[in-house]
């Protein structure tokens, strides 16, 4: 004989409509709380998207990098460099890796072409460099094994280098001089661009520094420029993220072995960085979600008080309903449904407003803000949950009213 849910919803909705101003004030806290949750979740997902696209563009999440350990006290001895024999040995020890590329930086490189000069780092690399950096050749070809074996004086230019050094003329097949040694241009790298959708956190292309580099076979770099003929960095690419973490550990061990226990190299993996970033994001989001939840709790307490006051005011109505046959449970449900409706409505409004201000906030923070269905579901569930939690006490109170007393109430 209980009244149906749709009946309760109908009663609740018309109650809200007859007390519009009160209902509006009641849901304000929920609207703001849900809006806050929406914005926070959007910021977080925007940050994740930004991080992921950066990772992808700079070699993917399977990348492991070996470089100088800046935390190591070099006064204790040791050098953060490897000779070619050691590099080959490492490659033999990690046959499971998809690619491995050692690099030798020539930091003071100066390129010149018929009087035009260009200062930018030149890197001695191997053919795997392209895989390691996830970087396609734009024109011509990249350095191959033959160049390496023959120690050919060939050079691949970054797009900015090519543009500045040749001023619109075709650099392919031309000769350039690198710190006095003549090289033939065999290729130009594709331009690396990484911009944010909503403007940029940094101004301009965040990967422009890569376009300012040029590349020669590592054997040539060692023979002609490397004073100590040492490799100062290695990039390794794994087949998958899990393998990347395993390879990272393995490489640490191998390098410690080679360097006799001196931790002169730092071995980092994109996977580990990302886990760290996810961890940070998790802490960050926990804090913000907690703030939002507190604001929702405050909203819930406000609602509970208003509902309690409203029940006090509607005591006689409750008495009448009981007199004409409402069960206590019907009264309980009526008020619970009404509270949930109010908070649910607040949730929907909060979601709508939240979506509306996402763009504004995104522009202000200069990052992409993404609203997705799961966020909307979360916001909706949370607002309905607040209604359930804070609606219980008033509903119990209403359901327990003594009808005789309630009917006497003025």
């Amino acid at each position, binding site marked *: 004989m209980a009244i149906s849910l749709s009946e309760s919803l109908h009663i609740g909705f018309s109650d809200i409509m007859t007390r519009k101003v009160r209902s509006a004030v009641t849901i304000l806290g929920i609207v703001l709380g849900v809006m806050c949750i929406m914005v926070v979740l959007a910021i977080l997902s925007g940050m994740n998207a930004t991080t992921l696209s950066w990772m992808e563009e700079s070699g993917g999440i399977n990348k492991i990098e070996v470089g100088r350990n800046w935390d190591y006290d070099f006064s204790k001895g040791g050098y953060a460099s490897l000779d070619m024999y050691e590099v080959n040995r490492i490659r033999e020890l990690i046959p499971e890796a998809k690619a491995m590329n050692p690099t030798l930086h020539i930091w003071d490189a100066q390129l010149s072409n018929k009087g035009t000069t260009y200062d930018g780092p030149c890197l001695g690399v191997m053919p795997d460099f392209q895989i390691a950096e996830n970087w396609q050749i734009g024109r011509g070809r990249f350095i191959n094994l033959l160049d390496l074996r023959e120690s050919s004086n060939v050079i691949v230019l970054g797009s900015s280098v090519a543009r500045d050094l040749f001023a619109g003329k075709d650099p392919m097949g031309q000769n350039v001089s690198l710190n006095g040694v003549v090289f033939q241009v065999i290729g130009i790298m594709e331009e690396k661009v990484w911009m944010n959708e909503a403007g940029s956190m940094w101004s301009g292309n965040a990967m422009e520094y890569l376009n300012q580099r040029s590349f020669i076979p590592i054997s040539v770099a060692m023979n002609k420029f490397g004073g100590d003929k040492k490799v100062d960095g290695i990039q390794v690419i794994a087949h998958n993220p899990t393998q990347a973490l395993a390879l990272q550990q393995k490489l640490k061990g191998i390098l410690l072995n080679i360097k006799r226990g001196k931790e002169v190299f730092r071995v980092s993996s994109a996977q580990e960085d990302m886990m760290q970033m996810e961890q940070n994001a998790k802490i960050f989001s926990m804090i913000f979600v907690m703030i939002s939840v507190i604001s929702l709790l405050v909203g819930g307490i406000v609602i509970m008080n208003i509902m309690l006051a409203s029940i006090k005011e509607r005591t006689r109505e409750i008495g009448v309903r009981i*007199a*004409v046959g409402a069960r206590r449970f019907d009264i309980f449900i009526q008020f619970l449904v009404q509270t949930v409706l109010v908070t649910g409505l607040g949730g929907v409004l909060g979601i709508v407003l939240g979506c509306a201000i996402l763009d504004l906030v995104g522009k202000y923070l200069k990052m992409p803000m993404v609203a997705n269905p799961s966020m909307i579901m979360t916001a909706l569930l949370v607002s309905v949950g607040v209604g359930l939690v804070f609606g219980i006490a008033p509903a119990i109170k209403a359901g327990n009213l003594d009808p005789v007393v309630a009917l006497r109430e003025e």
Partner: protein
Amino acid sequence: MEIIRTISMVKDYDLGKVKVRALHGIDVSIDSGEFVAIMGPSGSGKSTLMHIIGCLDSPSAGEYYLESDLVSKLPKRTLAGIRNRKIGFVFQSFNLLPHLSILKNVELPLMYSGISARKRKAKALDILDGVGLSDRLKHKPNELSGGQRQRVAIARAIVNDPSILLADEPTGNLDSQAGGDILEIFSNLHKAGNTVIMVTHDPAVASRADRIIKIKDGLVDNGDLA
């Protein structure tokens, strides 16, 4: 046929430190189809008696049989059903829900019976037509006169075809003209076969009934036992 019987019915109110006895052992019997007036001065316990008869309250001691069911043995949910289907209340202050239209007010008991919206509306329209208010359906109670409001309340009380109509000072808030109209409606309902129990302190009103039960200090005064 006997529809109501109370045996040595007692009602105590617990007011914290003191217990107040409102009913001191009431024995009444009312037959189906009777028009009974319960009379008594203010504070005599007549409203308490009516609340118990209407299953809004329960006796502290003694027995109350409604249609030969011992009411104190019935579970609460059954009591709600009894209030809904067997009892129709009419109050002195009308007790209409102010935010609902006349039509919705009359539909209210039917809603708690689980009757479909379409059937409810048809039934309520029919009853409102019977009390001459079919042109006021969309009005809110405060847009009606006192007499009209009480007619709405009567319509609400009878919409679910109850066995007993309980009226607590139904003319108390009305002028004599409107009060007379309301009493006429009760008389007609009685003639149509309804059991009507009316609480009043006004002898003129009580004279419309077949029988008067006088209550004084929580006891039946005229010893009118079946």
